[in-house]
C-alpha cells in the first residue's frame, strides 16, 4: 500500500497553519477586546457545577455567577451544587452562607413499610406505583401509604432515592436537590419538601380515622392530637385525622415524637425512636406524678361521645360507668373535652372528686329538705280533669274525687312528671302559686 507522504505533510502543515492563525487571532482578540470583568464572577463560575442546567433560573452557570456578583441572585440559589457550592460562593462573596442557606430536601411521608403494614392483595402487575394505583389502588393495606415500587427512584436525576429493605424510599440528603421531580411523579403524593435543618417530620399521610389507621399500619398517625397539645411552639395541628407540621414554627425539640402514642415521627440524627421505651418512660413519669391515667367517674351518662372521639378505641361501653383500658389509652385527653358531664378525669383527681361529690351530695340533700318547705306540688283552678297527670304519676298521688284534682303530699315524690303532661299548666309549686 502506497503512503502519500506529500498528503500527510500537507495535512499536518496545512491544518497546523490554519489552527495557528486562528489561535493567534483569538489570542490577539482576547487581549484587544478584553473587558474588565469582576474577578469574583470568574471565581464563582469555577466553583459552579458547570452543567448550565438553568435550574437556578438563570440562563447558565456564567449568568448565575454574574447575577450573584450583581446581587440579583442568592449565593444559595444553585440547587445542583447544594450547600457545598453555596459555601464556596459565600466565601468568594464574603457572605456567611450558613444563615441564608436552608435548602429543602424531599422527605417520604410514610413510615409504613413491609413490616408496619400488610399486603391486602397480591399484585403481580407492572412494577410501578402508578400502574399499581390504577389496578385497584395498589396492594398496600393503607390506602395512603407508599407503594414502594420506586417510581420516584426511577425519575430521580440525581440518584438521591433508593428503596430500602423495608420497601420504603430513602432520600440521600447529599444528592437531593429539591428539584420536585419525584414529588410530581408520585401517584400518592408521598413526598414533600422539608427544610434541611428541620429534624422532625411526620411520616404519615393518612387522613383515615384512627381505628382504620390502627388496623392497617402499626405506626401511622391516628390524629389523636397529643403532639399538637404538647408542642411548645404550636407547630403541629390536626387536619382530617392527621398531624400537620408547620416547619416554620418547629424548633426541633422532638417532644412530639416522644409523646406520640404511635410512631409516625422521624427524628433525624437519631435512630428511629424506640417508641416502646419512650412509652414506658412516659408511664413511669405519669406514675411519679401520681396521675395514674384517665378514669371515668359515676357522672358517666353513657352518651358514647367519648367512644366516638377516642382515637385508639380504649373505652368500653360494656359496663356503666364506661371503663378506659389503661393499656390502650394514649392520654390524649380528647375524651375529656367531649364528655358532657365531665365524668372523665385523671385518676388522682378522681379521688379528690369522690370526696367532693360526697360533700356535694350531702349539700344537695340539705337543699332538698329546704325545698320541701316550698309546700310541694299543687293543682290550681286551671285543671280540666283530663286525667293525664293521674296516668303519669308513678306513685298514684293524684285523686280525681274533686275538681280541681288534689295531690296527696304524703305520697308525692316531686318527680314533676305531671307538670310536663298537664295541658293547662295547672300543676305548680305551692310557693309559686302563692306568688
Amino acid at each position, binding site marked *: 500500500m502506497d503512503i502519500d507522504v506529500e*498528503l500527510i505533510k*500537507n*495535512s499536518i502543515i*496545512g*491544518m497546523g497553519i*490554519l*489552527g495557528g492563525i*486562528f*489561535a493567534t*487571532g*483569538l489570542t490577539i*482578540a*482576547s487581549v484587544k*477586546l*478584553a*473587558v474588565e470583568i469582576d474577578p469574583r464572577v470568574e471565581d464563582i463560575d469555577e466553583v459552579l457545577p458547570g452543567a*448550565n442546567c438553568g435550574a437556578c433560573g438563570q*440562563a*447558565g452557570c*456564567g*449568568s448565575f455567577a454574574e447575577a450573584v456578583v450583581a446581587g440579583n441572585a442568592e449565593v444559595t440559589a444553585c440547587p445542583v451544587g447544594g450547600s457545598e457550592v453555596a459555601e464556596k460562593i459565600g466565601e468568594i462573596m464574603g457572605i456567611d452562607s450558613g444563615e441564608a442557606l436552608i435548602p429543602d430536601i424531599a422527605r417520604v411521608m410514610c413510615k409504613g413499610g413491609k413490616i408496619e403494614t400488610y399486603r391486602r392483595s397480591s399484585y403481580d402487575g407492572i412494577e410501578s406505583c402508578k400502574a399499581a394505583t390504577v389496578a385497584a389502588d395498589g396492594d398496600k393495606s393503607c390506602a395512603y401509604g407508599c407503594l414502594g415500587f420506586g417510581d420516584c427512584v426511577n425519575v430521580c436525576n440525581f440518584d438521591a432515592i433508593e428503596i430500602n429493605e423495608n420497601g420504603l424510599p430513602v432520600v440521600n440528603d447529599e444528592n437531593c436537590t429539591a428539584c420536585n421531580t419525584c414529588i410530581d411523579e408520585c401517584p400518592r403524593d408521598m413526598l414533600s419538601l422539608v427544610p434541611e435543618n428541620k429534624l422532625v417530620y411526620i411520616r404519615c399521610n393518612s387522613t383515615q380515622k384512627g381505628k382504620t389507621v390502627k388496623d392497617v399500619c402499626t405506626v401511622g398517625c391516628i390524629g389523636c392530637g397529643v403532639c399538637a397539645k404538647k408542642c411548645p411552639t404550636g407547630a403541629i395541628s390536626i387536619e382530617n385525622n392527621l398531624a400537620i407540621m408547620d416547619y416554620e414554627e418547629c424548633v426541633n425539640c422532638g417532644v412530639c415524637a416522644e409523646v406520640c402514642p404511635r410512631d409516625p415521627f422521624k427524628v433525624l440524627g437519631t435512630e428511629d425512636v424506640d417508641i416502646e421505651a419512650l412509652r414506658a418512660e412516659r408511664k413511669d413519669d405519669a406514675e411519679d406524678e401520681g396521675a395514674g391515667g384517665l378514669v371515668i367517674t359515676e357522672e358517666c351518662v353513657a352518651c358514647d361521645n367519648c367512644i366516638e372521639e377516642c382515637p385508639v378505641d380504649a373505652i368500653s361501653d360494656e359496663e356503666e360507668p364506661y371503663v378506659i383500658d389503661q393499656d390502650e389509652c394514649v392520654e390524649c385527653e380528647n375524651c375529656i373535652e367531649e364528655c358532657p358531664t365531665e365524668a372523665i378525669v385523671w385518676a388522682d383527681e378522681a379521688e379528690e372528686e369522690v370526696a367532693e361529690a360526697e360533700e356535694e351530695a350531702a349539700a344537695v340533700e340539705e337543699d332538698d329538705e329546704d325545698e320541701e318547705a316550698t309546700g310541694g306540688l299543687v293543682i290550681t283552678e286551671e285543671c280540666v280533669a283530663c286525667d293525664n297527670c293521674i296516668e303519669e304519676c308513678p306513685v298514684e298521688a293524684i285523686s280525681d274525687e274533686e275538681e280541681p284534682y288534689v295531690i296527696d303530699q304524703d305520697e308525692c315524690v316531686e318527680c314533676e312528671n305531671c307538670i310536663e303532661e298537664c295541658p293547662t299548666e295547672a300543676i305548680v309549686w305551692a310557693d309559686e302559686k302563692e306568688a
Partner: protein
Amino acid sequence: MELLLIFFGAAVANNFILARFLGICPFLGVSKEVPTAFSMGMAVTFVMTTSAIVAWFVQGFVLEPLGLEFLQTMSFILIISSFVQLTEMAVRKISEPLYKALGIFLPLITTNCAILGLALLIPERGYNLIESVIFGFGAGAGFTLAIVLMAGMRENLKFADVPQPFQGAPMTMIIAGLLALAFMGFGGIVAM
C-alpha cells in the same frame, strides 16, 4: 435574480430547520419566548454569514490547493468554534447589553449543526463569494423565521388546554411537525 433565488431557497423553501432538519436543538430548546428566540436567531444569522465567508476562503485558498478536501469537516469546526469565540468577545466589547441579551446562546452556537451544514454545503454547490454570503445570510434569516414562529406558537400554547399526556415535549414535537409541513408548501415556489 440568481442571488434572490439563493436567498429565498435557503431561507424558506429549503429552510435549514424545517426542510433540512439541521439545528433542531436550539430550535426546540430556545423557542419558549419570542424575544430570546429572536436573539438566538440574530446570533445564528451573524455567525452563519461570517463563517460562510471564512469557509469559502479556507475552501478555495487552503483546502483545494493542498488537496485536503477530506479535512473539510475538521477545518470548518475549527473555523466555526474560533469564530463564535471571536464573536463573543467582540459583542461583549462592543455592546454589553447585546452580550447579556444573547447570554448562553452565543457559545451554544458553536455546537449548532446548521452552521456546519451551511459551511459544508457551500463548496458542494460551488458558490462564489457573493453567493456564499447571500446563502449564509438567507439560511440565518430562515433560522430566525422558523424559531420565532415556533416561539410564537409555544407562547400561545401556554394558554391552551393541552391534554396531560401531550403537555411539554410531545406538543412541541407536534407543532414543529405541523410547521415543517406548512413550509413544504414553499417547495413549489423555488426550485431545489
